[in-house]
């Protein structure tokens, strides 16, 4: 037990990889291509159960991490395998391990060719994603961040829809371009650190942050901004924030159901997580200065995503665009730099993972039955598939933000946070934060419009298309895999406290770090004292 506790995160990362290798070896030995799904299910479930051990330890102290491990990896360049969880990453790790068994289940019968490879890639992807969320060494973080691309590239490219090759390559290149600049920034930071402490450089998040906080490492205006932008671009592409979002609809639409689920539920969170973990901690001043840009882009994303989603004839593409809108909410909350807003952002990350993941799974069910994603092909499904309709509508409500379901809590917190925020107040008289919050409110209304309209077109009315008449309702596996998601939606909507408590301290720390040296506040008091002196 002690052994497990000490190496918990390493076990979480390695177990899926071992599973993937095992599945391939099993296939090579037995030539059996059909039992790998059991393999994948067992491994991912086991990983989920192991990840529950994270609860055995409390919330770490400010700046601290639990389940920490720090061993040298390449000592020649001072990079260490340093992992740990804190409030920020805690739920994301659990979200990952929670979603994975479900996505294995939703691919249970949907995958028809090369099953071994499919499940092996799924498992490898889990390793990479978990690595991203727990790594505290910048180089190793980058390593996992990039490594997650390859399995997803294959998942989209081999098992995707008609336009899969275009989508896969676009996905890969968009993300790779952003992250390579981050690599340069990481190495530059290494030397800036070396210069600041008069010693060897470091890739360690904790060490660099400590040097920054103690004032040993002070970034120049220009250098700080360039580094901030290099990190931010790579994460913005991943989130995705408005102008660099174009890879997302393609990738989501073409990916196989399990791929879309993971993409929406977990991969996108790597971007928002990275922004909060690295950009805010390392470059608080730059984050504050550029907040108005990100807030503007987030608002555009919310409205634009909603409007584009509204006119999609393709069911899955519609859901994909809702991701653009929802992730806009997350970015908005983060850059409000208020405790509530940032709490809401983290909460909304989880919500989006659960709700949008569920929506993609549900679309997948319909697609498996009819092999089309055109909304116009459906209609009146509630008559033939009542259970399916019920589950879909609950999920929709959660995504819209109906009170007592999870989406409400996140969106509410984000909007309150934005209202309270003074990050946009350049002078006292303008209240741009109200504008941003209200625009976000419009986004919520639009979300209700496009999702309810979708529900109306797909589920209500008479069955117009003859092919839909003989559709079967959900089977036990399908209902079974939706139940955990539905439970999560309700629990997170009714009783968010335990979730928020875990993240509370981490969020407060980040907020304090960003707002501590808040230029506005300092300048204002300076002005006031000067005014007093003048009198």
């Amino acid at each position: 037990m002690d052994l497990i506790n000490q190496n918990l995160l390493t076990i979480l990362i390695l177990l899926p990889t071992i599973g993937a290798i095992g599945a391939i070896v099993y296939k090579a030995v037995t030539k059996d291509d059909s039992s790998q799904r059991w393999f994948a299910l067992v491994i991912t479930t086991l990983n989920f159960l192991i990840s529950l051990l994270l609860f055995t330890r409390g919330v770490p102290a400010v700046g601290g991490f639990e389940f920490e491990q720090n061993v040298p990896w390449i000592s020649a360049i001072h990079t260490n395998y340093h992992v740990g969880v804190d409030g920020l990453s805690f739920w994301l790790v659990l979200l990952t391990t929670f979603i994975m068994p479900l996505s294995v289940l939703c691919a249970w019968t949907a995958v028809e060719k090369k099953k071994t490879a499919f499940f092996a890639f799924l498992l490898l992807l889990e390793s990479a994603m978990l690595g991203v969320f727990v790594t505290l060494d910048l180089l190793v973080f980058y390593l996992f961040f990039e490594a997650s691309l390859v399995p997803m590239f294959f998942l989209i490219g081999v098992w995707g829809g008609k336009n899969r090759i275009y989508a896969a390559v676009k996905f890969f290149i968009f993300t790779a371009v952003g992250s390579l600049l981050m690599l340069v920034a990481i190495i530059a930071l290494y030397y800036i650190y070396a210069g600041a402490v008069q010693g060897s450089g470091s890739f360690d998040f904790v060490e660099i942050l400590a040097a920054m906080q103690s004032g040993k490492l002070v970034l120049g205006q220009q250098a700080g901004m360039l580094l901030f932008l290099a990190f931010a671009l790579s994460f913005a592409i991943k989130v995705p924030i408005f102008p660099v979002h174009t890879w997302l609809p393609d990738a989501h639409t073409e990916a196989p159901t399990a791929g879309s689920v993971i993409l929406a539920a977990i991969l996108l969170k790597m971007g928002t997580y990275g922004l909060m973990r690295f950009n805010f901690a390392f470059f608080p001043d730059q984050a504050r200065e550029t907040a108005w840009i990100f807030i503007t882009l987030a608002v555009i994303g919310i409205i634009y995503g909603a409007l584009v989603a509204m006119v999609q004839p393709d069911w899955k593409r519609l859901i994909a665009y809702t991701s653009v809108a929802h992730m806009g909410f997350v970015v908005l909350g983060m850059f409000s730099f208020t405790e509530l807003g940032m709490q809401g952002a983290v909460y909304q990350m989880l919500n989006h993972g659960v709700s949008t993941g569920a929506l993609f799974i549900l679309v997948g069910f319909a697609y498996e039955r009819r092999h089309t994603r055109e909304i116009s092909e459906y209609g009146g499904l509630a008559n033939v598939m009542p259970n399916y309709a019920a589950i879909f509508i609950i999920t929709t409500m959660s995504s819209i933000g109906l009170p007592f379901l999870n989406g409400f809590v996140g969106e509410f917190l984000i909007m309150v946070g934005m209202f309270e925020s003074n990050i946009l107040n350049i002078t006292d008289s303008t209240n741009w934060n109200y504008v941003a919050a209200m625009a976000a409110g419009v986004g919520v209304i639009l979300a209700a419009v496009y999702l309810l309209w979708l529900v109306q077109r797909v589920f209500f009315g008479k069955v117009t298309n003859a092919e839909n008449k003989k559709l079967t309702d959900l089977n036990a596996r399908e209902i079974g895999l939706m139940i955990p998601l539905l439970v999560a939606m309700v629990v997170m909507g009714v009783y968010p406290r335990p979730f928020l408590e875990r993240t509370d301290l981490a969020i407060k720390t980040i907020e304090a770090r960003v707002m501590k040296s808040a230029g506005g506040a300092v300048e204002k008091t300076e002005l006031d004292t000067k005014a007093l002196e003048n009198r």
Partner: protein
Amino acid sequence: MSNFLLAQLTTPNADITLILPEIVVAFAGIVVMLYDSFFPKQKAVSGAIGMLGILISALLLVLMWGDSYPGTAWSGMIAHDNLRLSFGLVFLMIAAMTILASTLWLEIEGVPIGEFHALLLFATFGMMMMAAGNDLVVIFLGLETSSIATYVMAGLRKGDLRSNESALKYFVLGSFASAFLLYGMALVYGATGTTNIPLIAASVGAAKFPALLLIGSAMMIVGFGFKVALAPFHVWTPDVYEGAPAPITGFMAAGPKAAAFASFVRVFVLGFPLVAGAQAAGILHETWTSLLAVLGIITIIFGNVAAILQNNIKRMLAYSSIAHAGYATVGFIGAGLAKTAAERNEAIAAVAFYLFVYAITNLGAFAIVSLLGQRNDRRAEFEDYNGIGFKAPLLSFSLSVFMLSLLGMPLTAGFIGKVLVFRPALESGNVLVVSLVVVAVIGSAISAYYYLRLLVVMFFRERAVDWTPPRVPSALTTAIAAAVLAVLYFGLFSNGLIHKFAGTAPKAAEVRAER
């Protein structure tokens, strides 16, 4: 009298043991040649002799690592440092891989086996001399030895026009470049009065004719630039690489290029350093570093953009090798700008590591391309690879690993290599060099397109015509498996090798990390 003469002749510190690794390789080449002339029908013996020679030589090199360095040998003609040892190992690895990877090709094409192996060993000997040469003359001799052997190898497929064209082009343009190099060396000799690199370094500050030194170094950049295929001296590469038989193309893209880098680094980084207080040296140093940075930028952009447009995989790899020369240049300039000897050694080790990784990856890729290309490399278009991914999973997996490593994806050795060469350049903080790194990074992103394209055609497309996976002889399997394992292994556990190349003790560094 005769005793006196003998004493005179032996007094130079002619310590055979210090050049034993090189001698062993040359000797193995001669044995192969002799054996082949007596038993021309042999199939595997000459290869085995070659492998044996390479192994012994590698063993000797590794044993020499433990030495306390005497610095130079043979009256300063031969260097004895990490640069030589690490590059020497790289060349031996390249030669061994080439022998293994070419077995099937030799069989199919009916090429004279003994000649091929002898030439390969002589080329390797030449390359090792290039890394070991501490004197412009020795470097030039090594360069010519390896070049002439390679010219012949490029044309080994006598019946094929493209192979002939390749050899002839390589020969004519290569000689041209050698002439530039030699003239540059002569000018540098004129300015400094010596061909010995440490002595040049000592006298650049007080060079009699600084202009001569500048012109000489510029000409040497042209000469070496040709050999490592820096743009705009790269134009020969695609034609030569496409025309030459695939295993030899792999060898050419890895071996002579790495060797040219070894001497390039030695002459420029160690020969033309920044000397405090000496204006001439300062100008020279700044000129060559900025010039190389500009060439590096052009090379990376050009290599990557041109590679995108290729439909032939050998040509694509040829252009990508141009881009990789650009990436290696990043580390090279980093070495040139290093402020302390330790940093400089680390940067040189980074270049060596980068080229080591590039060589493994590239040789592995060419081994597979040659295997799938069949006779005359007919099947080397992207289309020929359509949908083979799940039909020959192991081969395609290996090729994918190589492509991802060339792309610099994490968990492959290519990633570590890139991080290592970008590091010293970023440390300098020089604006031009930082832009070079940014260009290199953008270039890597562009390269994602054409490396992934191979993955796309192999795994994502469907095969229209029937295709049976080729028979893979055991030597080739060994080569490919070794390359895949090395790429993955050094992606995770590169620490030891980096320390070995840089000549730093891993122990001390680890103590620091634990703190």
